[in-house]
């Protein structure tokens, strides 16, 4: 990386093509979903205002849909709808439904009973009462519902990037994993502006008098369709195989950038969250994914790692990194944490991960079983000589390690422990450490080198093939720059790896990344 710190403006200018594409995708995604949500929600709202016995049920279901965590909802949909725009739009429209249904219902039932009676008494039919009286009078309330739905949808649409549906989430989540503030802001600021802008425009529309509102009621669907058409499915070149890479992998030298420059590998790629990536590969939605070599799902979903024959993925040896002031304050801490050093190799870690990821055992249980098997477990002393704060990133392996450290500290020392697990990505975890919110967390040498230190390419190239050199380099640099100490490596190497379904790889005879490239280029 260059010495000069890039400003947000420079980043946005440099990435303007991508930014424009993502913004248009975001607008498109938002409005397609919104359009369909209005098409479904408005008639449903009208229906339950007529048949009140259904109102509790339908509003209840829409309410429950709203409470399902978005990433879980997206995960549920992969087996049915695959990845890409279809599940993203479906999920978004489900979130937008509640405010639209509820406000339509409230708006219509809120129309003055005397006015409805007058309409009926004048001789209007049910439909005439609805279109001439109820809907126009309920319009402000319905509009308010659509506004709420729009703002929700703009926000949730950032998550579409988890399942390869594009949008500004690509920058936001890429930035979080890459420790790149500019990238986060380049996604987050336009997303926030879009929410404000659409809310403002709709509020203007709402303030029009009823005569102009009639015009607006006709033009709204047209505008919605127009905006929806911005969403062109990420049109990249088609290849025989389809790859899904995490936003982090997409932006890294030791990720997709390296694959392109060192292997010359060009493959049709979508951006996807690692939470759903493995499943998507298993469901044959994707053929090649960027996984971690010790991930339990590798075993669970029958995937194989392609050999990195040109050595572009640097070693990712895991070790706890600790604030130096914490080591001084808690003198027994270092020796306790080093109890795990060298104890877990790649296959052991994969097996432990398999137990949590696939057998769904709790990280506590897996951690405890391991410590007992290796005669490391001691019952908790319930001491009160101080509280050690443990952090972890938001995936299974980190939870297991955090639990092991917690049990070791409680068993071997008089310290107590508070765990702050599930700290998003590298950036969130490392910021928590340097801002004295946690005392230590397990980190990987490669991540320390490339995501945190970000040295010049020459330095990376010289370090990458050598595991000890990388460890030594990050250890020295962290000590100097952040007063954070790398303790002894735990043993396993959780490096990036390209993976394919074992059967497909065997059938196509692909064992290495070079094999993959050759296959893609063959006609």
């Amino acid at each position: 990386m260059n010495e000069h710190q890039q400003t947000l403006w420079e980043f946005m200018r440099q990435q303007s093509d991508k930014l424009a594409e993502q913004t248009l995708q975001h607008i498109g995604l938002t409005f397609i979903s919104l359009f369909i949500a209005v098409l479904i929600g408005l008639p449903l709202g009208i229906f339950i205002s007529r048949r009140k016995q259904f109102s509790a049920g339908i509003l209840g279901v829409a309410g429950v849909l709203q409470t399902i965590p978005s990433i879980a909802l997206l995960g549920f949909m992969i087996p049915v709808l695959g990845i890409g725009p279809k599940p993203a739009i479906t999920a978004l429209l489900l979130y937008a439904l509640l405010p639209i249904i509820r406000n339509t219902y409230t708006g219509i039932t809120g129309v003055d009973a005397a006015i409805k009676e007058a309409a009926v008494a004048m001789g209007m039919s049910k439909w005439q009462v609805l279109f001439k009286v109820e809907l126009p009078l309920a319009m402000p309330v319905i509009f308010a519902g659509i506004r709420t739905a729009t703002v929700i949808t703009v926000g949730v649409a950032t998550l579409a990037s988890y399942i390869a549906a594009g949008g500004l989430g690509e920058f936001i989540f890429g930035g979080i994993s890459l420790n790149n503030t500019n990238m986060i802001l380049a996604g987050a600021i336009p997303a926030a502006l879009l929410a404000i802008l659409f809310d403002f425009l709709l509020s203007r529309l709402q303030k029009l008098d009823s005569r102009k509102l009639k015009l607006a009621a006709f033009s709204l669907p047209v505008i919605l369709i127009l905006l929806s058409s911005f969403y062109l499915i990420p049109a990249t070149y088609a290849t025989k195989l389809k790859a899904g890479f995490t936003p982090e992998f997409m932006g890294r030298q030791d990720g997709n950038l390296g694959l392109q420059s060192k292997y010359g590998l060009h493959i049709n790629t979508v951006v996807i969250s690692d939470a759903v990536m493995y499943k998507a590969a298993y469901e044959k939605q994707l053929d090649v994914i960027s996984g971690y070599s010790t991930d339990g799902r590798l075993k669970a979903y029958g995937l194989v790692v392609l050999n990195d024959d040109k050595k572009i993925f640097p070693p990712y040896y895991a070790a706890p990194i600790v604030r130096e002031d914490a080591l001084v304050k808690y003198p027994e801490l270092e020796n306790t944490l080093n109890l795990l050093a060298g104890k877990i190799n790649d296959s052991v870690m994969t097996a432990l991960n398999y137990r949590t990821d696939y057998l769904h055992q709790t990280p506590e249980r897996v951690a405890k079983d391991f410590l007992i098997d290796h005669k490391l477990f001691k019952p908790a002393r319930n001491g009160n000589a101080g509280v050690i704060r443990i952090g972890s990133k938001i995936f299974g392996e980190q939870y297991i390690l955090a639990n092991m450290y917690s049990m070791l500290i409680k068993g071997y020392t008089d310290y107590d422990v508070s765990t702050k697990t599930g700290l998003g990505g590298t950036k969130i975890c490392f910021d928590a450490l340097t801002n004295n919110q946690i005392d230590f967390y397990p980190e990987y040498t490669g991540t320390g080198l490339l995501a945190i230190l970000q040295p010049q390419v020459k330095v990376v190239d010289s370090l990458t093939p050598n595991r000890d050199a990388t460890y030594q380099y990050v250890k020295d640099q962290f000590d100097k720059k952040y007063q954070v100490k790398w303790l002894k490596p735990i043993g396993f190497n959780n490096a990036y790896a390209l993976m394919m379904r074992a059967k497909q790889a065997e059938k196509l005879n692909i064992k290495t990344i070079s094999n993959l490239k050759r296959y893609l280029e063959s006609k």
Partner: protein
Amino acid sequence: MIKVQHLSKHFGSVKAVDDISFEVQEHENLILLGTSGCGKTTTLKMINRLIEADGGKIFINNKNVTEQLPEALRLGIGYVLQNNGLFPHYTVAENIAVVPQLLKWDKKKIEKRTTELLEKLHLSADYLKAYPNELSGGQQQRIGLARALAADPAVLLMDEPFGALDNVTRSKIHAEFKALDELKRKTIIMVTHDVQEAFELGDRICLMDKGKIIQDGTPAELLFKPQNDFVKEFLKEQRLLLKFKTITVKSLWHLLSNEEIKGLGPGILVNDKDDLWTVLERSTFFNAERLNMMNLENKEMKTVSFESLMSAFYQYQKGDSHE
């Protein structure tokens, strides 16, 4: 014109309307009078099927209302609500045009009718483009009446049409109501709880209580031949006033004789259709000494003093109670 036979409606175990029958002649104005909860509004709403009857039959022009489509039935019946029920998102013109629009009149005809109605109701044409919330309560009620009259229906149903207005505005609208030609060609059923209003506007009154009709008759019949104590009790408080409003000069004519009045005070001209209340109001206003009365039928004139008019009134009452 309208025949109601054995009409019943119950809500749960409550009998809102209990086997009532009455008839309304063409161009007659029938008042359904009673306290709240007596079933008068329910009766009214069963006529245009806003409420469906549980038992009994209703005929309009010898056609059973339940044998027609409710929408078609209602298009032929004007309806005025207590709180006017104007559409707040429509202008005055659009509100008046609702029924003609539903009947698919052409634009020019609607425009002509709207202006005509506005004129008849003494409203400026400037209001056509206004929205209901920009009008006063009295003006809104006039627009509500105009909307009901727009397609010139033969039957008009009015549910406490002046109930939401203050006293001054109400008596003003009462006067207009009585003067409006258009209404003289209508068969009207009006619901009210206001005894004075009923006596002032009604040709005939059905006094209702607990879902039943207690007495059905002209205002004079209710006043002078009450069927039972309930009727007497109901009218008691305003009895004198009602008598003044019910008795016309004509009914006292045979008790009055021409007399010479020597004073120099002013005189007023009264015709025999005026009721005593009107005469009283006017003579007080002009401080009149001479009441010059004219019989419209045979053009006979009688000049009497206020005192003789009052003694004729007492004589009439005495004679009446002997009947």
